[in-house]
């Protein structure tokens, strides 16, 4: 089949089963847009900023498990993607971003809208390509999707010179990739699995510490089986929320800086930590030398470089979480009641130190999140922004299934949640999608209201509006003697009016007593986004809080 490079690109995307491209046009991708103009099988979603497109593709990928696809022009189009790419890199989201590049004879001459995209994105991608020849397009697309979605997933950037889009080639989509330097290990070594099983047999106070890798690997079922069979309590990282059902009696909920006290105590007291698909991030471990001081460590991860990076590991297992848990399940021998004393101790901590907040007549953010949990019966997709809103959303909603939690973990990107919720709603059209937002963060990509309105996406944006960059203010309060430098947002715009101007529905909640009714009303709107501006107690703090540099059991509880 004789096709232009641009046609070959779109044909290749069809072969990969792509349904949506999130993007923004410009001079160097006009050829591709011209092909999309006639295309029926792939829908292009025009965002209002390339960063929005990148986060939308990321949100789509997180709820569907498929590869999110982005298209942007050269120069500023590509550089506007970088935050979204870095965000996907830190959280291991599979996305492929296509960018236009100036023609090959113009490269390196500071041509109009030229940027060294492969150079800029090299440290924030799993891999990237500069395509100068049309003939390479099908192979590169095949490789890009393969690399993005296998092993430890991540972003791949494909920068295509504009002349390569024009040239005619004989199109044939390869059915195999040949990447001799890329062979992820998915099956854990039997000897290591045996060693892990033995160590688990000897443990008296084991804890499973599960991360986003469990979600990415689709290993939730195996994790639950494993934990229940052996009666081992499970704490998850923020990225792992939903990897293990939070209503299970073995659930310790989130650990780390804003984790539950009982999760942190359990980890610190444990004699065996079984880490599955997590990476001992500093937000989890606190002061590293004091983390889980009595525990031996088993670490299951598909990325060998994560094993031993931050913490010394006794039994490393390189492998896919799902496969490895399956194999491990066959080797372990559960002993009845072996952990009873340990579980009883944990039960006591749970009773003594539950997540709590002041349940008075004031409108408090935790109450709003609990209301959303109640009204959606824990079945919504919850996207978040970054800051206190994110932590309250993590703490007070019950995540019983994977891929319901969409939040920027590693990079902590304000402005992520709302565009991500757009991608999430495209990916999960039958689910109710929320963006639990802060008044600061929502203003970072507020322009995407247009995108959501145009596509009639019934996203519920619930702004936990404290008129502050709340999380930073909290640090200033607790660590900088209340010097609120540049965190006061009392000059915020009227968010209800802003939303209405974009064509969205909008409500304001100022009293606790009206919150439920307004949320119910908002949830009835099906044909456009709705923003609920909740004026919460302004100086509410997130607790527990492990101050930076402390051990995770040295937390402030209130």
């Amino acid at each position, binding site marked *: 089949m004789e096709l232009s490079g641009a046609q070959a690109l779109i044909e290749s995307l069809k072969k990969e089963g792509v349904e949506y491209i999130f993007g923004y046009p410009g001079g160097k991708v006009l050829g591709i847009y011209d092909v999309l103009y006639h295309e029926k099988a792939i829908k292009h979603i025009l965002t209002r900023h390339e960063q929005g497109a990148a986060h939308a593709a990321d949100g789509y990928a997180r709820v569907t498990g498929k590869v999110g696809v982005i298209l942007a022009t050269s120069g500023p189009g590509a550089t506007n993607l970088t935050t979204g790419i870095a965000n996907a890199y830190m959280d291991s989201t599979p996305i492929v971003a296509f960018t236009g590049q100036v023609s090959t004879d113009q490269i390196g001459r500071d041509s109009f809208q030229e940027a060294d995209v492969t*150079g800029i994105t*090299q*440290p924030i991608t*799993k*891999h990237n390509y500069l395509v100068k020849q049309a003939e390479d397009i099908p192979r590169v697309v095949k490789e890009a999707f393969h690399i993005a979605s296998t092993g430890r997933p991540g972003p791949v950037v494909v920068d295509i010179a504009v002349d390569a889009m024009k040239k005619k080639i004989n199109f044939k989509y390869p059915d195999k990739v040949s990447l001799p*330097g*890329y062979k992820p290990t998915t099956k854990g070594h039997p000897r290591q699995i045996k060693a892990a099983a033995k160590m688990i047999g000897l443990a008296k106070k084991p804890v499973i510490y599960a991360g986003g890798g469990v979600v990415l690997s689709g290993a939730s079922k195996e994790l639950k089986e494993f934990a229940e069979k052996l009666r081992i309590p499970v704490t998850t990282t923020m990225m792992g929320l939903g990897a293990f059902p939070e209503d299970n009696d073995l659930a310790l909920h989130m650990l780390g800086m804003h984790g539950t006290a009982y999760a942190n105590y359990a980890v610190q007291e444990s004699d065996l930590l079984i880490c599955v698909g997590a990476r001992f991030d500093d937000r989890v471990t606190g002061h590293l030398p004091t983390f889980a001081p009595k525990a031996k460590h088993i670490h299951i991860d598909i990325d060998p*470089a994560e*094993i031993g*990076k931050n913490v010394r590991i006794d039994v490393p297992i390189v492998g896919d979480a799902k496969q490895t848990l399956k194999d491990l399940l066959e080797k372990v021998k559960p002993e009845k009641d072996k952990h009873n004393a340990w579980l009883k101790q944990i039960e006591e901590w749970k009773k003594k130190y539950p997540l709590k907040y002041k349940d008075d007549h004031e409108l408090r953010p935790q109450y709003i999140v609990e209301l959303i949990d109640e009204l959606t019966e824990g079945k919504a997709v919850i996207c978040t922004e970054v800051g206190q809103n994110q932590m309250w959303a993590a703490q007070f909603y019950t995540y019983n299934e994977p891929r319901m939690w969409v939040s920027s973990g590693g990079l902590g990107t304000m402005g992520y949640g709302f565009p991500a919720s757009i991608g999430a709603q495209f990916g999960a059209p039958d689910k109710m999608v929320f963006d639990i937002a802060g008044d600061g963060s929502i203003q970072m990509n507020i322009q995407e209201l247009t995108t959501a309105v145009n596509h009639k996406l019934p996203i519920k944006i619930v702004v936990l509006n404290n008129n502050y960059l709340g999380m930073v203010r909290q640090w200033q309060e607790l660590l900088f003697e209340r010097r609120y430098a540049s965190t006061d947002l009392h000059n915020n715009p009227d968010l209800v009016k802003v939303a209405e101007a974009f064509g969205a529905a909008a409500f304001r909640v100022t009293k606790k007593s009206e919150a439920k009714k307004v949320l119910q009303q908002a949830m009835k709107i099906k044909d456009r986004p709705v923003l609920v501006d909740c004026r919460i107690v302004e100086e509410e703090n997130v607790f527990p809080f492990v101050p930076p540099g402390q051990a995770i059991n040295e937390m402030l509880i209130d």
Partner: protein
Amino acid sequence: MKHTISVIVENKPGVLHRVSGLFSRRGFNIESLAVGTTENPNISRMTIVVEGDEIVLEQITKQLYKLIDTLKIFDLPEQKLIERELALIKVHANDKTRQEITQIVDIFKAKIVDVAEDSLTIEISAEKDKVDNVQKLLEKFGIQELVRTGKIALQRGGI
């Protein structure tokens, strides 16, 4: 501790950037780096001398393996190393000093590759210490220009 590692990579544009970028980004120290093609023109060999303990070396190796273009990494054991550095040293010479310089060149099995009225250019290919030595001995005559490569290395014996 110093380690000499051989990184076998696909000979593709940008691969040097990927490797050197990885070292600077992750805070690993490169002592020297030499790149060249191998018996297979599609494959390059980088010889990298790095500083670090076993844990650092393990991280470096694992991170390098994550690069899609990396095919194989060898940590070359000290005892079984054939290693060479190459230096070109242009040293000031006159009728009085020329003979002494020639002696040094002979002792170290170096070579004189260019002779000019007031200078000699010396080529030496040897282990790092030896190159250091020659350089030091020639310093007193006045070194006009000098260039050294990074270390290249192979392991002795069959593979």
